[in-house]
């Protein structure tokens, strides 16, 4: 193959060279002929007109020498009438030559004669013409008879050429060979790499990636890393969206599935309002309590957004609160607020406590759970407790004030009137008893609170108990000119009870009766005995209690709301204590009363077997 290739290439090169040489020779011959024509004109000019300058051959020789200096002629001579006039070979001058120019060659024409002995040279002859006066050299037309210029010129330019051509050819061949070798080597490297990969592909499939990586994959690593990270980020975001959607759907599904089911019922049954707001500030779920509060029904809920939700009263306040808590970024801030009901018609203002709990799932905070609880009871209890403390303080200080003032009156020595001294002792004694009773009441409440009250059951003479009770309040009754009567059956058997505790009950009921009965009123204390129970009654014709407040007056720290009650001092523990004590005895207190029509309290104590049955579990 290579040999054929080389021979082919050589032939092509040789052909190219020969072609080039032929072209060069042709150009050379044209140039030579033209040069000869110019020389003929010049010689003719040197020769001049018909009468030649005898010295013209000298100038002619100079012209010939100049000619051969520029043209690679072997020899040049000027012949006239067979005699050599001038020549580049000085020995020829004056000699006779046998050759002559063909007579048919016109002035300006050329006769080219190939030499049989010398294939590399040829003879170019051109006839000399006499220049006519006034004409230019080129226009000379008259031939000089037999005079001509003869130049022996090489057919081709002189060649050290032959050797140079071969060297060039050799160089070309070497260059081609070198190029081929380089190409071969390159191919072989590539082929070797490919074959190596092929081998590894077969033997080490696991390492294919490494080998591929070695094929310039490394440059792409950075780009791939960036792309990968973007992909991972995108995937995470998609994943969280999907999870969120799934969670929402799951919640909706659960809520929908349990539409008539247990969860929904449970959520609707709790008294606390629950609102679940999605990140689109849409009400996803609102339970019954919250519906009532917002004044909407459950089917409307899903259509509600925070922006267009409308409500009144506490609902409006709640919406304002939620709107305030929802920031511009769509996040909710945790808040706890107390909302007062603005319903002026309500007898007791309702108080609600609202909790806004932002839900934090993944990095998403745009959801919120709102819980709202009616804390009216608690608030009322707190207020009642505060009022109780204020009342107790006042109640304790009032007898203390008298005790302290009358004690100083005694000790000052400024008042020596025996009547005054007696008065002082009486006031101190009375106020001390009042203070003591008050402290007992407060302690009773504390004991009842912690359940540590103990009953010391004994046979109690009711007649004596009631008489003592009336005696204790006689002072107060006399101040208001209230008539207190005790109406008892002729025969009254003792009851099993805690004497001191029962005394507290009687005292509290009698105290209230006198306190809330206007001046000149009357109070009747009675007792009825049946087979099951002993019923003590304390009846007055005082201000009475509205039936709506019957339950309330027995509550701890609670008092009637009418102004007459509020004007009287009191701690709101008397009736509570009384009822608790009676209940510990297995009985109860009943209230019969209407506003402005007086009150009757009935203390029912179990009797005989009922009492035993009632007391046994304690």
């Amino acid at each position, binding site marked *: 193959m290579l040999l054929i290739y080389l021979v082919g290439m050589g032939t092509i090169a040789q052909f190219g060279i020969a072609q080039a040489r032929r072209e060069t020779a042709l150009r050379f011959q044209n140039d030579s002929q033209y040069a000869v024509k110019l020389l003929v004109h010049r010689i003719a000019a040197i020769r001049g007109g018909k009468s030649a300058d005898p010295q013209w051959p000298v100038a002619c020789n100079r012209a010939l020498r100049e000619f051969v200096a520029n043209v690679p002629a072997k020899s040049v001579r000027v012949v006239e009438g067979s005699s050599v006039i001038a020549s580049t070979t000085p020995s020829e001058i004056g000699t006779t030559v046998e050759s002559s120019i063909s007579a048919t060659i016109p002035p300006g024409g050329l006769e080219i004669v190939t030499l049989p002995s010398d294939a590399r040279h040829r003879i170019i002859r051109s006839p000399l013409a006499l220049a006519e006066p006034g004409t230019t050299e080129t226009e000379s037309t008259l031939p000089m008879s037999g005079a001509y210029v003869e130049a022996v010129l090489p057919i081709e330019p002189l060649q050290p050429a032959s050797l140079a051509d071969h060297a060039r050819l050799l160089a070309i061949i070497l260059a081609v060979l070198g190029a081929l070798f380089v190409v071969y080597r390159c191919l072989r490297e590539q082929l070797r790499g490919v074959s190596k990969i092929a081998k590894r592909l077969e033997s080490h499939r696991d390492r294919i990636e490494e080998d591929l990586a070695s094929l310039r994959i490394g440059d792409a690593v950075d780009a791939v890393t960036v792309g990968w990270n973007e992909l991972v980020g995108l995937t995470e975001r998609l994943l969280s969206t999907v999870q969120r959607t799934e969670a929402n759907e799951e919640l909706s599904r659960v809520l929908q599935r349990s539409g008539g089911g247990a969860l929904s019922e449970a959520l609707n049954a709790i008294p606390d309002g629950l609102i679940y707001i999605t990140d689109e500030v849409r009400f996803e779920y609102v339970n019954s309590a919250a519906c009532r509060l917002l004044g909407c029904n459950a089917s409307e809920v899903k259509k509600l957004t925070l922006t267009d939700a409308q409500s009144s009263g506490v609902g409006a306040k709640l919406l304002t609160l939620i709107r305030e808590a929802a920031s511009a970024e769509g996040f909710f801030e945790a808040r706890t607020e107390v909302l007062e009901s603005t319903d002026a018609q309500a007898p007791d203002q309702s108080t609600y406590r609202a909790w806004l709990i932002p839900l934090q799932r993944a990095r998403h905070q745009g959801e919120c759970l709102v819980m709202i609880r009616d804390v009216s009871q608690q608030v009322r209890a707190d207020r009642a407790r505060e009022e109780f*403390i*204020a009342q107790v*303080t*006042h109640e304790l*200080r*009032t007898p*203390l*004030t*008298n*005790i*302290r*003032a*009358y004690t*100083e*009156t005694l000790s*000052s020595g*400024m*008042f020596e009137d025996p009547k*005054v001294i007696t*008065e002082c002792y009486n*006031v101190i004694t009375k*106020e001390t008893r009042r203070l003591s009773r008050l402290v007992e009441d407060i302690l009773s409440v504390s004991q009842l609170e912690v359940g540590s009250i103990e009953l010391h059951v004994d046979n109690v003479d009711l007649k004596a108990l009631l008489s003592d009770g009336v005696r204790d309040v006689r002072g107060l009754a006399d*101040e208001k000119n209230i008539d207190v009567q005790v109406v008892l059956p002729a025969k009254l058997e003792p009851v099993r009870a805690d004497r001191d505790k029962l005394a507290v009950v009687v005292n509290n009921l009698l105290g209230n009766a006198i306190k809330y009965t206007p001046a000149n009123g009357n109070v009747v204390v009675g007792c009825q005995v049946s087979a099951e129970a002993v019923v003590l009654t304390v009846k007055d014709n005082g201000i009475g209690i509205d039936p709506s407040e019957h339950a309330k007056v027995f509550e701890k720290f609670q008092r009637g709301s009418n102004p007459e009650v509020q*004007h*009287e*001092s009191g701690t709101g523990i008397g009736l509570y204590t009384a009822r608790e004590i009676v209940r510990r005895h297995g009985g109860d207190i009943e209230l019969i009363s209407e506003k402005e029509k007086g009150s009757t309290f009935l203390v029912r104590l179990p009797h005989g077997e009922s009492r035993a049955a009632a007391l046994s579990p304690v």
Partner: protein
Amino acid sequence: MAKILVVDDDVHILRVLSMWLQRHGHEVVTARDGKSALATLDRETVHMIISDMNMPLLDGIGLAKEVRAKSGPALPILILSARCDQERLNEQLATYGVRVYPKPFLPSQLVVEINQLLGVTVS
């Protein structure tokens, strides 16, 4: 000496204050509640009012307001209070130029206080 109106729904307080003030040479008139006190003021001219805080019909603050509206700021008023929010009451009554004196009190010290008030405002 001065004529002093003492107002309290507790008769024992009225009695003991009357004894002490009279012993210190003052003339005392009494009332059982704010309304009665106002009626008394319509009839009589006094140099000072000493009143309980918690009373039926009209309490100490109500009385003080009425008195200030009728008689101006000159008449010294001293309110005796057994309440636990003494400071708040003090601030509330200060706007009417009314002093608050806490219960329980020692009559001897209260008399000193009363005399000081009278000495400052009554020549």
